[in-house]
């Protein structure tokens, strides 16, 4: 019987964390080159007596789509005996999946094609692993020094957290649902300037929607403005406490301080779930 | 400085005149706070004519000493003193209380030359005195601020808020005088809302206290000399007075907080004043 919280964590990994790999594909030239023209389907599958959890990465000519659900005939599958095991791997703990699909029954008909397709899939595996590894950049312990990596970390972190907040609500966390239910139309905006990174969460009567960029139809209800990538990193890496960050100029909060604190509280809860 | 014989004599003569002016004005006004005016008039007399630096030709002179009569209902007394000082002619007092007169029960500093603050609602004067004294010191000026309170007025919490701050701000350029005539409208101060031990209260609030006879010019001069020389904090002079002093049939009578006089009664009043100064 898998814990509800573990299922919620899976939901967040699938819906918020994995999609962040698209940022890496788009913005990291090395990764973009690596995946140029690549197509294939890589599935995550966790066995469970009641309801297995599954989602797959669909690469189409280098572009990535994440789909929740079981794939039909994936090229590769990362298979886990339990949902918790899969979650732990995604949390960055030393867990290795069982990799299925390097050799397929259909390949066995033709040994020559077997070699070719296996090799292709092995290459795909290698690339996908490297892409998955890029998610480690979001870990609290990751301290990049190179400017591009720093920028990526910040962008990934904020894209992930905004989606995660929305999915935390949609995924059914009771506290989050109660919080979103009583709010009229409000925008919680995060921007990093300079840096050009922006993401938001719109909250309205129980609904939530994560968005990229700056919401333009109305003023944000809470706006966290980070002073450049370094300011954002200082706060993300917990080099400064949030309020200390405000005093030091790493971040400014505009809007209701109580609601900013509540939002931060939810972000912490999510983070402890996913790491 | 102790009063010379000449100064004392001048004060006495003027005191008699002022008391008569107050009776006159009470008649012209159709009624006035004659009781409280007569208890305060000797204090006003010595302040305006010996101690306070004012300029009748320039009532707004920036470096003048300020005098706040916080017991603003003594307006009839203040008006008489300011006329006598020369800020305006005594004839003007004939319009007291009349339509659009510059003079009413409680005087308006915008309408009465020589008046520093519009008072009337009790409890406001000391706070303004604190502000003035603070402002003088801040600007490095040596003009003084005198505040005259009524004793019943000291029921007001705002008086004590101001007293606390006067002490906190160490305002030695603020001289507070209480016209302690012992009466209010509904009875004696001790019957209605007791002030005693009054001097202890002021001491507890950080004031140095002098208790004197408020009708004795020598004692008034001594106390004021002391207050003006004192450094480091505020001084209060509790001047024991008689409400209605000089008009024997109204002295110490609660009913004469406010009253009117016809010419017959006024004549009696004048005679009483004459007797006081024989």
């Amino acid at each position, binding site marked *: 019987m898998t814990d509800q919280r573990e299922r919620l964590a899976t939901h967040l990994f699938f819906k918020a964390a994995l999609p962040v790999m698209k940022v890496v594909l788009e913005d990291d030239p090395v990764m973009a080159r690596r995946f140029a023209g690549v197509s294939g389907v890589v599935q995550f599958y966790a066995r469970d007596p009641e309801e297995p959890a599954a989602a797959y990465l669909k690469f189409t000519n280098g572009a990535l789509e994440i789909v929740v659900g079981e794939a039909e005939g994936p090229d590769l599958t990362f298979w886990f005996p339990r949902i918790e095991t899969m979650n732990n791997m995604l949390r960055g703990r030393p867990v290795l999946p069982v990799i299925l699909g390097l050799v397929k029954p259909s390949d066995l008909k033709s040994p020559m094609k077997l070699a070719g397709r296996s090799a292709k899939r092995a290459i795909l595996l290698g690339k996908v692993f490297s892409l998955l590894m890029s998610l480690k950049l979001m870990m609290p312990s990751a301290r990049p020094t190179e400017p591009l990596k720093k920028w990526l970390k910040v962008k990934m972190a904020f894209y992930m957290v905004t*989606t995660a907040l929305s999915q935390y609500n949609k995924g059914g966390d009771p506290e989050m649902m109660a919080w979103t239910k*009583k709010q009229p139309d409000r925008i919680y905006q995060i921007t990093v300037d300079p840096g050009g990174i922006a993401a938001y969460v719109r909250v309205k009567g129980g609904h939530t929607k994560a968005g990229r960029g700056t919401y333009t139809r109305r*003023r944000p209800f809470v706006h966290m403005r980070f002073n450049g990538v370094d300011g954002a990193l200082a706060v993300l890496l917990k080099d400064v406490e*949030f309020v200390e960050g405000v*005093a030091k100029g790493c971040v400014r909060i505009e809007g209701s301080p109580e609601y900013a604190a509540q939002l931060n509280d939810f972000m912490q809860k999510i983070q402890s779930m996913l790491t | 400085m102790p009063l010379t014989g000449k100064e004392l004599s001048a004060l006495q003569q003027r005191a008699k005149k002022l008391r008569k002016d107050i009776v006159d004005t009470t008649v012209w006004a159709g009624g006035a706070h004659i009781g409280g005016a007569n208890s305060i008039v000797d204090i006003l007399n010595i302040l305006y004519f010996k101690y306070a630096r004012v300029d009748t030709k320039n009532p707004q002179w920036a470096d003048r000493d300020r005098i706040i009569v916080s017991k603003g209902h003594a307006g009839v007394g203040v008006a008489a003193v300011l006329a006598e000082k020369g800020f305006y002619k005594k004839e003007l007092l004939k319009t007291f209380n009349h339509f659009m007169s510059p003079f009413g029960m409680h005087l308006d500093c915008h309408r009465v030359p020589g008046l520093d603050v519009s008072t009337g609602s009790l409890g406001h004067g000391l706070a*303004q005195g604190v502000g003035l004294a603070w402002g003088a010191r801040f600007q490095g000026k040596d003009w003084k601020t005198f505040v005259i309170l009524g004793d019943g007025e000291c029921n007001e919490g705002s008086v004590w808020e101001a007293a606390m701050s006067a002490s906190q701000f160490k305002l030695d350029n603020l001289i507070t005088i209480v016209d302690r005539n012992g009466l209010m409208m509904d009875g004696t101060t001790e019957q209605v809302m007791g002030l005693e031990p009054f001097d202890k209260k002021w001491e507890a609030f950080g004031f140095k206290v002098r208790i004197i006879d408020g009708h004795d010019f020598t004692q008034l001069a001594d106390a004021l000399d002391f207050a003006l020389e004192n450094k480091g904090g505020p001084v209060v002079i509790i001047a024991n007075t008689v409400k209605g002093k000089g008009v024997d049939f109204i002295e110490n009578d609660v009913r004469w907080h406010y009253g009117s006089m016809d010419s017959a009664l006024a004549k009696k009043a004048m005679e009483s004043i004459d007797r006081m100064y024989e």
Partner: protein
Amino acid sequence: MSETTGTTWTCYDANTMTQAEIYGRVLCDIGAQRPDLIAMTADLEKSTKIGLFKDKFPERFVNVGIAEQNLFGVAAGVAKSGLLPVVSTMAVFTSMRALEQVRTDICYQNLNVKIIATHAGMSFGAAGTTHHCTEDLAIMRSLANMTVIAPADGIETANAVRAAIEWPGPVYIRIGRGFEPVLYDTEEYGFQIGKAVELHSGTDITLICCGITALQALEAAKMLKESDGLSVRVLNMHTIKPMDTEAVMKAVKETRRIVTFEDHNVFGGLGTAVADVIAASGKGCAFEKVGIPDTYCVVGYPEDLYTHYKLDANGIMDKVREVMGKDFEEDENWDDEV
């Protein structure tokens, strides 16, 4: 059990956190040019932000402790000594506890005292009614010689303070707690005491607002234009007294529908002041006032209270649609962008 969020803060931190409230810094700038400027408060240096002035000019700062009547009495005396006091405490204490001093010592004697009343309206929501002030506009309007201003945001407050210092006589400026959202992006929009600012042009209906409702009305107007095709005029009537009667009459003639919004009782404040003008003109005009409906407000964060009393953008939109007789439209898709 979550770990601490690191977003705990004390009232001492408030000074660094409130980007919205810049008047404290503006006061320091003015103070540098005006050696006669004295800042005063009653044990509320941090909450009112006037403490910023104290840090810079400690000798020009007077704190009387928790004694608001004394505060305003002393301010009157300071003004009379030839200086320029700027006094700040909470609106509820200014307009009620110390009202007699404000009226008799300051207004009646027409003294040059500038009052910055903070935490007005429901902006101190969680503190409850004892610290709310939904009556101050009504009270201050009724004092002769008093000029009454309710700035829309921190930037307008800075402009108002600057203007007030040059304006003759007593001035009452009422603001929130300092975390209010920012409406303007520049100080140079032509702020003038007594002149409303048109935030949005329109011809179907005019929304006359002050304080926090100005930004909310502007957002509402923009959304109504997009979704309902309505042409909504928004006037930021920052000065309640003297009222910009010309702007009101223009709105009457050109839009024929006026709704006022204020973080204040519907009786006696901005709405009543506007109604005075409309009624006296004898011209026909649909008119409604939105504010606190003559009640003592419930407890809550101010943002939630504004929603509750329909003073936020959504509430304003509802009201406009009601007045215009239109229906609400459901909106969009709720899928996350990934």
